C-alpha cells in the first residue's frame, strides 16, 4: 500500500489518472445528486442547445450563470443569446425529486437554477454539456450513463477473468488431455470473428428485455468472447512457472495441487493479471459501447455512453453541427487512457524486482 502512494507521487500522469478515475467513479456513485436533472427529463424548446454555463455577464457580474437562448434558425438549430436575460446558477439548488440509489429521497442537487424552486419565474435550466435533440441534458445523461458504462467494465472483467483463470490454470497445471481440450475450445472461440459472435449471441436472445436483463446479457456475451485470449496466456504462464524448483518443492512438501496453484503459481502472474484487468476494463466498456452503437445493447430509456453515441454521434454532420454531442466519446477516451496509465503503475508495484528509479 505504501509502495502505491509513493509510486503515485513519482508519476504525475498515473497520479492524474488516479484522480480522474476517482472523480468519475465518485460521480457514478452519487449521480442522482450530482446531476441537475434526470436522464430523461425533456426540456421543450431547448433541443440541440450548446453548453450554456457562463462565468460572467454584465447583468449579473462574476458568477456561474446561464443566458436565455432563443432559437433563431429552425433549420440549422442555431441559438442566440437574449440580451440582458441571465439566470443564476446556484449550489444545492432544488431540482427534480430523486432517490439516491433508489432509497434516499431528496430534492436538492449539487447545482442548478431556480427553475424548480420557482416554477414560472422564467429561470433557464443549465446545461453543462448542452442538450440532445429531445432537449435532454447531456451532462445528466453522462452521469447516469456512467452507471452502466463504468460498472460493466468491472463486472465483465471479473467474470471473464474468473473463467480464464479457472480454465487456463487447469489446462496449464494438469497438462495432457485437459490441456488439449481446453485449448482447443479456446481456439475455436477465438476463430470466430468477435463482432459476428457478439451479433450472433445477441440475435438469438429476445429483443424485448428490460435494461437489467440487457445489462446481464451483454456481460455474459462479452465475457464469453473475452475469456479465451486471457486463458491461453494464463495457461502458457502456468506451464512455464510450473518448471520452477519452488513448485517442485511445494509438491515435495505434500501441498495439494490446488494450493500450489493458488498460493505459488498464480501470485507469480499477478503483474500480468493486473495489467489484464486494467486493460480489460476499458475493453469491456468499449465492447458495451459497440453493442449499444449497433443497437444491440442498451436502448432507451436506459442510458449508457454507448447508447448516447449511437443516438447522437453517428454522423459527421451531427458532430459538426453539435460538437458537444461527442462528450461521451471524449469520456471514453479519457477512461481508457486513465486505466492504461494506472494499470502500468499497478503492474510495476506488483513486480518484486521493481525498485523505484533514483535520479542520477
Amino acid at each position: 500500500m505504501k509502495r502505491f502512494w509513493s509510486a503515485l507521487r513519482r508519476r504525475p500522469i498515473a497520479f492524474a489518472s488516479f484522480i480522474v478515475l476517482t472523480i468519475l467513479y465518485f460521480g457514478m456513485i452519487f449521480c442522482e445528486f450530482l446531476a441537475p436533472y434526470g436522464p430523461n427529463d425533456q426540456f421543450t424548446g431547448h433541443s440541440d442547445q450548446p453548453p450554456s454555463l457562463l462565468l460572467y455577464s454584465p447583468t449579473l457580474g462574476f458568477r456561474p450563470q446561464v443566458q436565455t437562448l432563443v432559437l433563431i434558425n429552425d433549420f440549422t438549430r442555431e441559438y442566440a443569446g437574449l440580451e440582458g436575460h441571465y439566470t443564476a446558477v446556484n449550489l444545492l439548488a432544488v431540482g427534480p425529486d430523486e432517490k439516491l440509489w433508489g432509497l434516499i429521497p431528496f430534492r436538492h442537487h449539487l447545482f442548478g437554477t431556480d427553475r424548480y424552486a420557482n416554477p414560472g419565474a422564467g429561470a433557464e435550466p443549465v446545461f453543462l454539456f448542452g442538450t440532445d435533440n429531445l432537449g435532454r441534458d447531456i451532462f445528466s445523461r453522462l452521469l447516469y450513463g456512467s452507471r452502466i458504462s463504468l460498472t460493466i467494465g468491472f463486472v465483465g472483467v471479473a467474470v471473464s477473468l474468473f473463467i480464464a483463470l479457472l480454465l487456463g490454470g487447469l489446462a496449464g497445471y494438469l497438462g495432457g488431455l485437459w490441456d488439449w481440450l481446453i485449448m482447443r475450445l479456446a481456439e475455436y472461440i477465438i476463430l470466430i470473428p468477435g463482432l459476428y459472435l457478439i451479433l450472433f449471441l445477441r440475435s438469438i436472445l429476445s429483443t424485448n428485455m428490460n435494461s437489467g436483463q440487457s445489462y446481464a446479457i451483454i456481460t455474459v456475451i462479452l465475457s464469453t468472447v473475452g475469456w479465451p485470449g486471457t486463458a491461453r496466456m494464463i495457461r502458457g504462464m502456468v506451464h512455464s512457472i510450473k518448471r520452477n524448483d519452488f513448485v517442485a518443492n511445494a509438491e515435495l512438501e505434500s501441498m495439494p495441487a490446488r494450493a500450489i496453484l493458488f498460493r505459488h503459481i498464480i501470485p507469480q502472474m499477478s503483474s500480468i493479471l493486473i495489467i489484464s484487468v486494467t486493460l480489460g476494463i476499458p475493453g469491456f466498456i468499449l465492447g458495451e459501447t459497440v453493442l449499444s452503437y449497433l443497437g444491440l445493447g442498451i436502448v432507451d430509456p436506459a442510458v449508457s455512453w454507448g447508447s448516447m453515441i449511437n443516438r447522437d454521434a453517428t454522423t459527421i454532420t451531427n458532430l459538426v453541427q453539435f460538437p458537444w454531442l461527442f462528450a461521451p466519446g471524449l469520456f471514453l477516451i479519457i477512461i481508457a487512457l486513465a486505466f492504461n496509465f494506472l494499470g502500468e503503475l499497478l503492474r510495476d508495484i506488483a513486480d518484486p524486482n521493481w525498485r523505484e528509479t533514483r535520479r542520477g
Partner: protein
Amino acid sequence: MRVESTGTFIRVTDLTKVYKLDAGLFAAAGRWVWALNGVSIDVQRGETYGLVGESGSGKTTLARALVQLFPHTSGRIEYFSGGDGWAITRRDPRSLRRFRADVKYVFQDPASALDPRMNVLRILTSGARYSDRSLDSARLVSRARETMEAVGLRAEDLGRRPSEFSGGQRQRISLARALISSPSALICDEVVSALDVSVQGQILNLLIELKRKYQLTMIFIAHDLTVVSYMADRIGVLYGGRLMEEAPTAEIVERPLHPYTQLLYRAMPRLGGKLPERGSTSGAPYNPTRPPSGCPFVGRCPLEQEKCSTVMPELREVRPGHRVACHFVT
C-alpha cells in the same frame, strides 16, 4: 567424527526411467530415452552417499525418482525407518508423505528454488502445515528462527524476500526450509554448482556442520569428483543411466577401477597438474537414445572390445565393498 552407519536407510533396486520423446506430427516413430537403466544402491543410515556423473548420467533423474517427483518406469524404492520398511511409490500416498517429510530435497538453482513473491518466513513455513510432522503456528515460527540461525542467517531476515539475498544466502534459506521438519536425510542436488567459488566452501562446511549436528544421512550429488570425494563416505559413479563403480571414498581416490572413473580422474584440472594427453579423453559423449544393450561407455573406452556393445557388464563386487561394472575388471 563419523556418524556410525546402522543399516540400510533407502534401498533402490533396479531402478529404471524411460522417457518417450515426442515425435511430432511429421517425424518417424518416436524415440526413447533411457535416463536410468537398472540402478541399485543401498544408502546406509548416517552415511553420506556421493553420486557423481556428468550430464546424461542419470544422477539428477535418480535423485528426483527417489522422491517420486515423477513415477519411475520399473524397479523398487524401499525406505526403512524405526524398524519398518515401506515401498515408496506414487500409488501409496501415505507412505510417500511420511517419506517426503523425512527425506528432504535441496535444489541446485538458488534463483528458482524460492518463491520470489513470498518472504522467508512464509517460504519456510507455508508447506509445513501439509506435512506429516506439522507443528502449531507459534511453534512453527520459533522453529523457523532456529533453523535460520542454524544455517548462519539471522532471525531478522525472516521478513525479507529472496531477491534481497545473494546466491549463497539463498542456498542457506533452502537448507533452512529443508531442516524445518527435522528430517533424517537430505538429498543435495548440485547445491554448490551455481555459486561463486569463494562461496562454495562456506556451503560445504555448513552441510558438514549440519550433518554432524542433526545426525543427517545425505545423498550428495555433483559433477565434480573432487568435491564429492571430500563430502562423501561412499561414492557411486554413474554413466549413461547405469552405475559403473561404487566404493568407499578412500578406495575411489586411491584406486579407481572402472575406465570411466579413471577418465574422470584424469580429466580433472588440478593445481600443478599437466594437461591430459591427446587421445586419452576423446570419443563421442553418451547418446541416451541408443538402445540399452551393452555398455554405455562404448565408443570412449580404452579397453573396449566387441562384446562390450552387446553384453552389458554386471555390477560385481571385485573387492570388499567395491563394485565395478566392466567386463575387464576383476
